């Protein structure tokens, strides 16, 4: 470990960190944005559930590098390629949680909302989705942490992330950048995870803190 390497490469490290955060966070949020409507459909119409969950487990089984390679003809060696691949993986962990969260709303609560004059849409937005937030957030946390870490695989097809530091360190047999990259990835993942925990608390003030 050569500590002086860090300040002398500060600009590079900062740029790679930003790129890695961008790819990881954006892909997880896209995964969430697609999971919500799909999950609402799957929770309401049961026939949609088995094919959706099968598709999700199939996609999730595909190694990240293979999926990124499959997207090359369509998207090239770009950020978009890695974001689409990671958004798909995020979708795979978030969608089942959206379905489980909405299904977990007690029937008595739904009936109470209906009795108070809530229509289906208003009941969904005002009652069911808020109650499903803790479970959905659980999925989003896994999706975001995985995306941040898996973004480094994008470096293998030439997309700039903190994975650059791993490859740089390997090619020069110089461990310092690898340590820096690993510590930053874990720090970013933990930081984003804490933010999501905070957001969940804001969205669900009625849940007891543990």
């Amino acid at each position, binding site marked *: 470990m050569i500590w002086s390497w860090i300040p002398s490469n500060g600009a590079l490290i900062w740029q790679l960190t930003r790129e890695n955060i961008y790819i990881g966070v954006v892909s997880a949020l896209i995964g969430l944005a697609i999971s919500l409507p799909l999950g609402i459909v799957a929770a309401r119409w049961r026939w949609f559930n088995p094919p959706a969950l099968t598709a999700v487990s199939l996609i999730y089984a595909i*190694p990240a*590098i*293979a999926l990124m390679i499959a997207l090359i003809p369509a998207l090239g060696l770009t950020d978009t390629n890695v974001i689409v691949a990671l958004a798909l993986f995020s979708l795979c962990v978030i969608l089942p949680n959206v379905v489980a969260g909405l299904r977990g709303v007690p029937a008595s609560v739904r009936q109470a909302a209906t009795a108070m004059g809530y229509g289906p849409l208003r009941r969904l937005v005002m009652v069911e989705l808020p109650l499903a937030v803790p479970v959905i957030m659980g999925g989003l946390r896994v999706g975001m*942490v995985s995306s941040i870490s898996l973004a480094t695989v994008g470096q293998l097809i030439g997309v700039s992330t903190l994975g650059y530091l791993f490859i740089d360190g*390997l090619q020069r047999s110089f461990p310092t950048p*690898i*340590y820096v*990259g690993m510590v930053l990835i874990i720090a970013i993942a933990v930081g984003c995870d804490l933010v999501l925990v905070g957001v969940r608390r804001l969205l669900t003030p009625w849940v007891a803190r543990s």
Partner: protein
Amino acid sequence: MSFFSYAWDWVTQSANWHGPGSIPQQFLAHIGYSVLPLLIAALIGIPAGVAIGHTGRGSVAAVNVANSWRAIPTLGLLTLLVVYLGFSFVTWLLPLVVLAIPPILVNAYEGVAGVDPEVRDAAKGAGMTSWQEVTRVEVPIALPLIMVGLRTAAIFVVATATIAAYIGLGGLGRFIFDGLASYQYGPVAGGALLVAILAVFVLGFFAVLTRLVVPAGLRKQGKTE
């Protein structure tokens, strides 16, 4: 041309099916590189998870590991070991084992910890020793989740073994990284397709295995996973 036409053209070339480093060889090698770490991880992860679930000791640590293991960048771990130790048996095996343990351990823990207390009491009431309670009651009830953990780990290991080709491991990842190094998309696409097919095989294998080992009375519970 699309990904599939590139991949198909390459996979169907008969030259790629014979000799050293051919598709069948690398396919089998990839399975070998995945099975060994998975077995070692299962031998460590299942007993440890069952012990934590049975005693309740260390459960906080287990849950934290469950939440954080996905943050570890596998590429970083692999490159770091190679820089220190060069490419060797340890360099690829150790990261694969270490990264496969968390999902196995955590699912075994959750499976055993989730056993209905009344069922435990019934086991004790029937005169079972602690060991009998674990092996005859808790582990069978936890099997659906233990299988989920093994499947998750297997999929993770197959993917990580692909990336380990970057540091010199054989297997299907060789086609990908050798192709990338020589700017040929054919083998890259073909290797990616074969890895995806292997991953789907793994899913199917665990679906069958789960069906075989999970007691009939628990199958409905396993399906919800």
